[in-house]
């Protein structure tokens, strides 16, 4: 990478990360650059995607694709008070495809196959299986059932007040807390690895001096900006 882009990207890196200490004009600058480039990139990608999908069929005489563009443009009516209802038509198409496609795939992947993978043998074939496997299988079955029962919403004040059910719900909360703790901690390693990678970039031989200069500059702004502004106001 050439020197200019090395300077720019190192500066943007340090300005962005400085938010963990304070929001300064440096972060604001990097933030708006990011916002602008991301939006610009999004526009370029969208123009490319639209022309890739729509252009060739239209040239081949499939005029119906013009409809899709018109429907998309109807979303712009949201900026008008009078005609904003027109945006409901494209939204209807988008929402119903999204919801329905999810619905039909989820039945298998989240419902049926999750149930069938909980079809475990609680005694793990008593003559061949290991006791650990049996304990694990029983635990899985119990936890899945308790957690599912926790999310039964109806029947409040009537049959949900059953002693046993209340106990099940209480157990479910603890099971969930235990799982959430583990799930939270399991992400720690990956998150640290992210910054390790960025540190390796910042401390690479050719960017090390640049990093040092920009870190010092950013630190000065972080510490000195507020006192300076106060002095400015007094004067």
């Amino acid at each position, binding site marked *: 990478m050439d020197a200019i882009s090395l300077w720019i990207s190192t500066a943007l890196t340090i300005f*962005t990360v400085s*938010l963990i200490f304070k*929001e300064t004009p440096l*972060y*604001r600058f990097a*933030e708006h650059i*990011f*916002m602008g480039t*991301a*939006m610009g*990139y*999004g526009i370029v*990608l*969208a123009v490319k995607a639209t022309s890739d999908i729509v252009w060739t069929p239209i040239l081949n005489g499939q005029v119906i694709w013009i409809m899709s563009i018109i429907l998309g443009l109807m*979303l712009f*009516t*949201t*900026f008008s008070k009078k005609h*904003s209802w027109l*945006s*409901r038509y*494209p*939204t209807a198409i*988008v*929402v119903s495809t*999204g*919801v329905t*496609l*999810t619905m*039909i*795939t*989820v*039945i298998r992947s989240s*419902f*049926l196959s999750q*149930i*069938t993978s*909980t*079809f*475990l*043998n609680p*005694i793990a074939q008593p003559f061949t299986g290991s006791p650990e496997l049996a304990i694990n299988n029983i635990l899985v*079955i119990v936890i899945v*059932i308790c957690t*599912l*029962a926790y*999310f*039964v*919403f*109806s*029947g*409040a004040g*009537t049959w949900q007040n059953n002693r046993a059910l209340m106990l099940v719900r209480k157990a479910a909360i603890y099971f969930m807390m235990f799982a*959430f*703790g*583990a*799930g*939270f901690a*399991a*992400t720690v390693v990956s998150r640290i690895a992210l910054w390790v990678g960025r540190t390796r970039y910042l401390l690479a031989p050719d960017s090390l001096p640049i990093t040092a200069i920009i870190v010092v500059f950013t630190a000065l702004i972080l510490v000195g900006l507020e006192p300076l502004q106060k002095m400015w106001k007094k004067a």
Partner: protein
Amino acid sequence: MIIQGRVVDFLFVAFLFVLTYVLARLTWIPSIRKIAAFDGIKEAVGRAVEMGRPVHMTPGTGSLNANESGPALIAGLATIAYAAELCASMKTPFIISLGSSDAIALTDQLLRQSFMVAGRSPEEYDPSVIRYFPGRDTIGSSLAFTNSVQGLMAREKPAANLMVGPFYGEQIALCEVAAKEGAIQIGGTQSTTQISIFAALTDYHIIGEEIFAAGAYVSKDPTQAKMIAAEDVAKIIAIALISLNALLIMLGLRILPFLQV
């Protein structure tokens, strides 16, 4: 003919459709258990009123027509519409960060409705409360969205931060920045890999499927409660199947093949 391998799937969907239809016909109205997190929304808005600071809400990023993120986005918007209604009736300012360009029109419509329900005139509704940042649907990653929302929260110092919808890890940044400003936090998502972060970091956690119950929970329409009851029936079927199998498999019988058709 039903396509091979989809028979059980079809029967199940058909069953749910029939079940909701039948339940809707009944005069019986199920009572729904309290979900603490939704009452937390009231508390959060109340605190914003006290402190005179805005409420920040976001349904995360994703596209309305995408698998999984679409339904979660709609669920998030339902919760946000409810929170916006509370804000409108208490005349407290709020900001909505959107990371989905296709949801802007929908959000706008929902907010107009919220203002009307809250008894405010539609003229008082200012569309600039919707702040859009390029998100997952536009550039394939939520990082630009996250970066901008971090900055927004550091500047506007919200008293409450409501995050319900599809999240992919960025909530850790949003929660921490909001926590630094002392905001009360409520969060929920459909993504199982991300639920733990919300559970650990938020004051009120809308756990997993509870986000889909939002609309039903806050509305006074009895049909909504019946929809929740239909879901409960399906859950009880799942519990029954798992326990039944555990019993039968010990006797050497297998019911698994019937579910794989």
